[in-house]
């Protein structure tokens, strides 16, 4: 077979190819999720598409970041699990797509789904916990967390419940603005909500019904002290982002993680997706680590 690679720049054709070739396994494989991020910047599309004769067989979906003038994955830098979509039987052509890219190009957060991408250097991990075999948070902690860590989590959560008044609310959509402000309070200048359009994108996410958006608000001693946004796609609960009051005690942070896990179990999710970056807790909480990789055609010299 002879594979030819063409760069598609038309958004309508790009969407048609995406729908044709994406396996739609994770939320990052869906056009709808990435488009919410794309539509506010409308960076030029650069979908590298492989054809066997006239038949599309693979897609490396990229866009040109107009600020950096570099290629990046469609939807921009929020995206994890970026994938070269290939039809079965064409796995061995993966390298051809990457070798078609201009120099210099660096693409990050690539999922290793074929022999070529699986040998790229690892830069981070995507953290996912299987929760299909448990029905309660205690059961989860017993099954997936080491005994020392489990006792510590349970002690901290119990302490919060015994020493404070805690009320949990679900789907108070008005609290989205509070999520933004608590996130800025928690992370300061590093908050994602200082990025252009990010608050608007999150407002859109709460309207994206196909992803079952849900807000979890936790009141601590009469004050709303934490808000979290989750989405659910194909029985995977995705903890998108949140914010916790800077004045909340350390044990409250632990309690909020338990509360989110409980929410995922209430939704009968089979997986809990905590996205990338360990943040000092995900591996200890028994999340499995899926490598995220980087491709660069820039010489190290």
């Amino acid at each position, binding site marked *: 077979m002879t594979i030819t690679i063409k760069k598609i720049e038309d958004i309508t054709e790009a969407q048609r190819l995406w729908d044709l070739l994406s*396996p739609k*396994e994770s939320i990052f494989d869906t056009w709808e999720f990435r488009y919410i991020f794309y539509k506010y910047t409308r960076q030029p599309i650069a979908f590298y598409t492989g054809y066997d004769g006239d038949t599309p067989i693979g897609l490396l979906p990229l866009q040109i970041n107009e600020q950096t003038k570099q290629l990046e994955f469609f939807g921009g830098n929020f995206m994890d699990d970026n994938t070269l979509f290939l039809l*079965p*039987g064409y*796995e*061995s052509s993966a390298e051809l797509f990457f070798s078609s890219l201009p120099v210099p190009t660096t693409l990050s957060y690539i999922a*290793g*789904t*074929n*022999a070529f991408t*699986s040998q790229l*250097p*690892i830069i981070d*991990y995507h953290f996912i916990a*299987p929760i299909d075999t448990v029905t309660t948070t205690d059961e989860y902690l017993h099954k997936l967390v*080491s005994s020392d860590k489990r006792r510590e989590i349970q002690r901290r959560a119990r302490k919060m419940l015994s020493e404070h008044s805690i009320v949990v609310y679900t789907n108070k959509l008005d609290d989205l603005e509070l999520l933004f402000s608590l996130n800025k309070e928690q992370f300061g200048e590093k908050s994602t909500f200082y990025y252009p359009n990010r608050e608007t994108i999150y407002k859109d996410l709460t309207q994206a019904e196909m992803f079952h958006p849900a807000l979890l608000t936790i009141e601590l001693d009469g004050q709303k002290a934490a808000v979290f946004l989750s989405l659910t796609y194909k029985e995977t609960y995705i903890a998108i982002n949140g914010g916790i009051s800077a004045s909340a005690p350390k044990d409250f942070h632990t309690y909020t993680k338990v509360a989110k896990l409980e929410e995922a179990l209430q939704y009968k999710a089979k997986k809990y997706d905590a996205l990338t970056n360990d943040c000092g807790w995900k*591996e200890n909480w028994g999340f*499995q*680590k*899926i*490598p995220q990789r980087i491709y660069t055609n820039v010489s*190290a010299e």
Partner: protein
Amino acid sequence: MLSPKETIYDVWEFRNCFYKYLNYRLFFYTVYLQNVPVGLLPLQLNPETGLLEFFGDHKGWMDQNKIFTTTDNKEALVALLLQNITMPAQLDSLTGHEKIIEQLPITDYTHLLPLSTYSTTTEYTDDRLHGSKKKQIKNIIKTYEDIKLEKRYNVSTDIEHLFELNIQHFGNESSFVWPHRKEIFRDFLQLHCCKSNLTTLLYQDKIIGVCLSLQYRDSYIGINMGVDTNILPDILSYLLLIDIQNAISCGAKQYDARGGNQQGKARWHFDQIPQHSFTYTL
């Protein structure tokens, strides 16, 4: 014919070191296309568990087990082979890029350290270790280099000290109390498919650490160690650093610290490659 021979675990001679002592009944599931073999799932029946397991495995020792296929239609061939297992099976440390494998539960990780960008272990520790772990390792290196331990390489009889020290350290949990394990490791020193390296550390003429590694293609695999921590408590960490330096010195592109002991190995910030498990019950 079908093995990609990418890792040492893909090599018949290596797996045969275990198999020849076990002699378990073989179940090599093979797919043929027009009389040509195009896929292979190499299994054996463990008479103790009554379960099919990967060829050459013994108590979960084998790492990076693969289903071998030709380059085309890998997804379909892997699916076909797994669907055709007709007996109870427990296939652990299964690795592969196919979706059907990636969707299986992750039960372990292989720990790999890419070495291409390092010319010394210091470059590795500066790059990958941070905070208290980095400080701890730097202290160990300084302390142990001041002691000036004697090193010797490839004295084949030192493997007996590796066994002895390992049993002394782990007691009944040492794998060297199991039948045939010592013979298997002695056989590793005679392999033609790879180069074996024995590193021995002596303190005041007493052997306090022995490490066995194998070099296969661009990979340097840390197979096992025996250490005496009574005199120098951090000798295991120091011996691992020496082994990594050996790997760099002989031009290996990656150090393979294998699977298992995830908590202990994670502290070294090696890359972690998921290993999956496939279970089939009647």
